């Protein structure tokens, strides 16, 4: 069970958070312009990396804020935590 450093609250137990999957998948601004394949790419296709992965997390039982987190899925080491809208760090 990790300790996650919420950018708004500080270090908290993982049980307070929920994971929202891969980060930086932007909802298309003009979905109607997309064909089925392009839309499916946004809707369904997600990476499942063994290694460094960028993820969305929500402090669900805390401040309820969403933020991004960089985690190595092979050892659960968290490399960085940053707010929504901020530029992802280079890892």
């Amino acid at each position, binding site marked *: 069970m990790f*300790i996650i450093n919420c950018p708004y609250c500080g270090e908290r137990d*993982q049980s307070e958070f929920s994971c929202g999957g891969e980060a930086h998948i932007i909802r298309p601004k003009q*979905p109607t312009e997309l064909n089925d394949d392009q839309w499916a790419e946004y*809707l369904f296709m997600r990476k499942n990396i063994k290694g460094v992965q960028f993820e*969305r997390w929500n402090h669900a039982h805390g401040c309820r804020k*969403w933020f991004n987190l960089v985690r190595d899925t092979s*050892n659960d080491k968290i490399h960085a935590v940053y707010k929504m809208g901020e530029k992802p760090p280079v890892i």
Partner: protein
Amino acid sequence: MTKYRINKTRFIDQTKNVSFTFDGKTYHGFEGDTLASALLSNGIHLVGRSFKYHRPRGIMSCGSEEPNAICQINNNTEYTEPNVRATEIEIYEGLKASSQNCWPSLNFDIGGVNNFISPLIPAGFYYKTFMWPKSFWKKIYEPLIRMSAGLGKSPTKPDPEIYDHKHEHCDVLVIGGGISGIISAKIAAKNNLKTILIEDKNILGGSTIYQNNKNFVIDGQKSNEWLTNEISELQKLDNLTIKTRTSLAAFHSYNYLLAKENISDHLPLDKKDGSIRQRLWKIRADKVIVGAGAIERPLIFNNNDRPGIILAHSVKKYLDFYGVSSGLNNIIFTNNDSAYETAVSLFEKGISVKIVDIRKKSSSSIIKNAEELGIEIYWNSTVINTFGYKKIKSIEIMNLSEDGSNVTGNKNKIQCDCLAISGGWTPMVHMHTQSGGKLDFREIDQVFVPSEKNENHINVGSCNGDFELEEIVKNTNNKVKTFLNINEGGFDKISVLCSKESEKKNIWLLPNTISESKTKSFIDFQNDSTAKDIKLALREGFKSIEHVKRYTTTGMATDQGKLSNMHALGIIADTAGVKMGTLGTTTFRPPFTPLTFGAIVGRSVGKFFDVVRKTSIHEWHIQNNAKFENVGQWKRPWYYPINNENLYEAVQRESKAARNSAGILDASTLGKIDIQGSDASEFLNRVYTNAWSKLGIGKCRYGLMLNEDGMVYDDGVTTRLGENHFLMTTTTGGAANVLSKLEDYLQTEWPELDVYLTSVTDHYSTTSICGPNSKKILKKLFPNKDFSDEAFPHMSYQDALIDKIECRIMRISFTGELSYEINIESKYGRSLWESCIKAGEEYKITPYGTETMHLLRAEKGFIIVGQDTDGTMTPIDLQMDWIVSKKKYDFIGKRSLYRSDTIREDRKQLVGLLTDDPNEILEEGAQIVSELDKNPVEMIGHVTSSYFSPNLNKSIALAVVKGGKKMKGQKLFVPMENKNINVTVSDFIFLDKENKRINA
């Protein structure tokens, strides 16, 4: 003292007699004994039967690795517990233990027949034999296996004991109270670090605390004496908490650990006094030092499982700790020096002992010690067979060939009543790997040792592969200093003398004169798998250790292969001709030793299992005989039976009353989200399928919410309270998820929108009154209000006062009747409800529950998200095209509504179903078919909602059917167990299609 209690030790109080029973017979032991040591002191070795062949088995170890001595405790009481290891449980006055897996009795065992037919039960036997024919599984194979297996009986009554959970934080957690743990804890605590030391036994000291051999000396004292002093020093340290009888269950990432403390297990039943039985500690430690120790390996040879064959070091512990000699005529069979300590100990107490060693020689000080004492040693020899059925009587030994692959010379038979075996030591790396640590293989003594890269935990002592006393003490001191960044260890100048092993030799499967197929060389004693099972699995093509393990069930019993995993790996490596280090190990999973369910759930039992949510009107419902239904965590009135009515009768009455006069429903559980901000209407436009910008202040609108994949997610009515202020309602079960989803979009996709969401579900109580007389009742409650259709039309809301308390009245309907919902601050909910009941008395206002609500809405063809939908229904499938805006550029899920899959015409679509026999009520969930004689029968849909409608006087149902939109009037079938029900596809609005009743 009994014949076998030959020694007085300071660990066992021989003035405190304890009596207990084993298999119904009374025995005596002393305070401090485990069940195993007490049984051995009475000369009892035979404690169970093996799982597959039902061979007699005896106590084999003195710890958590025990595969054989598995007992049922206090059978036929509410305290009964199966699968308790006799080597771990402390005896107490009145303890009743019995052997397991030995029907009909320990001494006469019908399953022993399996022993003779064992050539027929090879690896994978269960997979191969019991697979076919399928129909045999339930009636023949499964009962057969269950009867002959019988791994203990579960309690039949609720567990009367109390369990607890507690969180703990510390700077340093030390796991294991052996010599390395004690050194570590002392260094940490003396350097102002908040330290916890946990030890699973009842006293500290590990195996050093009874190490009285003169070859092991620290600072001029025998190592046990030195350690005894250290422990008394330790107990004076303020920063240190010592928890004995506490075993580590799991070591998770980020140094989060679970440890189980036994608080009252060792107390007699009448002294437990309602105290907590076990406590699960949830520890978050800054640094963890693991000193978990090592487990002695057995040796693998023919018939190595007889009662009386015990691990050599366990024999030493029974002797030097408990004062019990496992046998009076002992043979030590070893491949290493450590077993000589046992031999010397036995000899010094005047007990007969001989040694069989597979090595050609060894010249360390402990060997010299044994030789000087005149102990007979058979070098370069191996045991090829053992004799004695219920207890070992003799062994046969032969010389090993030059390369160890064969036996030579003559057989030599030697009498004995105990064979103490030692195949070396396996570091307990379980904790290290559980936390994510990797292992390295050390070729010289064939062990996996932690490969340390983790900056927040280290391994010390024998679990780190340090087996010699000098190494243990000095390496622990140095490692802990570096790890905790400390200059003075306190043990820097210590002097240690010890015997050092010079010769190492290991043979995973010892050779024999007879062919392998005729031997029984056990690897996993609890699951009865042998060396030849492993080889068979390899011949059949299994390669991965994980597959071999599952196929042969090696390492899959309750001991999780603590004694067997290394031998399985070794034999695989030897057979396949590969290096053992390249095979890797199987995964070590928590818990390290089995945990009780009680410890896992702690206090979360009974009414503390989950949160129960009640509305402010709840007590009234109870007083009025409501039956409740769980909706998420909410308790909702299901129906209100009068005079012994059943569910059906009550619902028929309630439904008629709601349509004919007036019904009242507690709708407080519906989710309510307060939405404010200058972009609130734009936000609603994006999350609902229909348009919201033009909704006037004071108006209400029904909305449907989709997932991005186009599937219906939730629905509800939203009211515009002000220019920038809305109140959204959601389904009862969906409230929390909807709020999360909306927050997600607001924070991550549309941060530019000025919108604020607040959950107000619990803030307001909602009373819904429906029926043709509802308007008259509202008029009585709010005499100053104009309830005419012009002043207060359907789908609108008004503020109002009742007894000077503010409330909101919405004229909305989920039943198709004229209907009002009144929202009031929760604390006034009950008083408002009772005012409504009073005002409605003259109209026989009838409280109704969720079941009637469901029936009424089904008559009207309104869906329930989650009942008529299942996450695969689009609004088009539900024939709700009317609510999907064509004009809006975008909303959540819009693009998905015309994907190739969602525009298929043969998707399941919502329809009505009428049974040909109007009195026949379909079962919800029943499958629907169009052709009965097609093989296989094609299921084209299923019933989602079904009721007998008292208002239409016939059975009605909603269903989803492939291509159902175009099937109106078509005949279909609902096949049931004993009959086929004929149905006709109909419109799904059964009542008042013209919406006349809403304005009645």
